């Protein structure tokens, strides 16, 4: 599978990213059949993404020796890096809020998981990229960072890019057993 002149891992990555997109597309279609209302589907996608994120973050950290983030900018870099590892294609990080607690992940002229998707008009409220939001949220929650994510732009709906807006909410505290405080 490793083409000449390319790093095998990256090559491999690309191939599998296609597969992931296909599978995800078929899944969304199935969930749509089950739930019909796009709003409900969005919820399911977020949940699915969250579950994946929660597990993926452990894999990412343990196998790539990722140290703790010292600030939110580093967090942004790591998220970007994770996308490169698992989908073979990394987004740009940009549009930082002046306060430094909000940034965007931007994929110009594409959607990282939706190359093969066309949207019928009656499904414009379906958030195809919701699964990414869920995954990022789940992953970051495991490293005690609570974020809120919105889809600012969606390439599949005719925007120039796909843009996820990620806002830092708070640091999560460790759980304490009863009697301790």
């Amino acid at each position, binding site marked *: *599978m490793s083409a000449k002149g390319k790093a095998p*891992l990256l090559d*491999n*990555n690309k*191939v*599998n*990213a*296609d*597969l*992931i997109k*296909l*599978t*995800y*597309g*078929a*899944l969304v*279609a*199935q969930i749509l059949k*089950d739930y019909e209302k796009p709003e409900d589907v969005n919820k*399911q996608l977020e*949940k*699915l993404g*969250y*579950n*994946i994120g*929660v*597990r*993926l973050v452990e*894999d990412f950290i343990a*196998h790539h020796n990722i140290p703790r983030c010292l600030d939110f900018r580093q967090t942004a870099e790591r998220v970007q890096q994770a996308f490169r*590892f*698992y*989908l*073979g294609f990394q987004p740009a990080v940009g549009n930082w809020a002046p306060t430094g607690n909000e940034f965007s992940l931007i994929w110009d002229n594409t959607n990282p998981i939706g190359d*093969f998707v066309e949207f019928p008009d009656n499904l414009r409220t379906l958030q195809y990229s919701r699964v990414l939001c869920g995954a990022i949220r789940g992953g970051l*929650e*495991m490293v*005690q960072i609570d974020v809120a994510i919105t889809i600012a732009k969606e390439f599949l709906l005719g925007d120039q890019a796909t843009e996820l807006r990620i806002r830092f909410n708070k640091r*999560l505290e460790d*759980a*304490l*057993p*009863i009697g301790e405080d």
Partner: protein
Amino acid sequence: MADAISGPSYLYNLLANELSVALYGDLDKTSENMGALTMMTIKDRKAAAAAAGPSSSEAPVDTSASARDSDTVFPKLESIGYQVGQRLIERLTKEHARFKDELDRMKFVCTDLWKYLYDKQIDTLRTNNQGTYVFTDNLFRPLAFFSAEGVDQYYPQSGRFIAFPCGIIRGALSALGIRCTVSAKVLSVTCCVFEVVVERT
């Protein structure tokens, strides 16, 4: 050991497995404690820690899984797999020479497609020459997440993870012009057998 199933194929397997768990999990509210749908968040953990202490939970046992497997979820997952298989084969065969015959197509599924999906080939392909083909994968990747040599702890639930690949095989073969039905059995811990029966018209 880590490299065999790390990286991107890990994400794929995770997605496929998560899919199975999500669909099966939805059906059974009683087994909500298991499966990925109800994975605990930090807040939940707090509550659980407060309520019980971290060690008190029993091991999750899912006895009803096999009973449900064949009913409604199997066709759903299978049809997701079918779509994936169909579209995948279009990509994979782009530069492939023309296929000679049925067996040639079966071989393509066992080698190229399987390698693409699971980074290994089907171990044996047998046929009775009357339209029945049996694929045996002695170390089926999706199952490798659950079990290892001599450990069959999750064997009862392993049935959940074969509907999707069954669909992929059927979809792939259909894109290659072969209509068939596909069923599968998990034989031992990590060994999965697919039976393909070609529809003759």
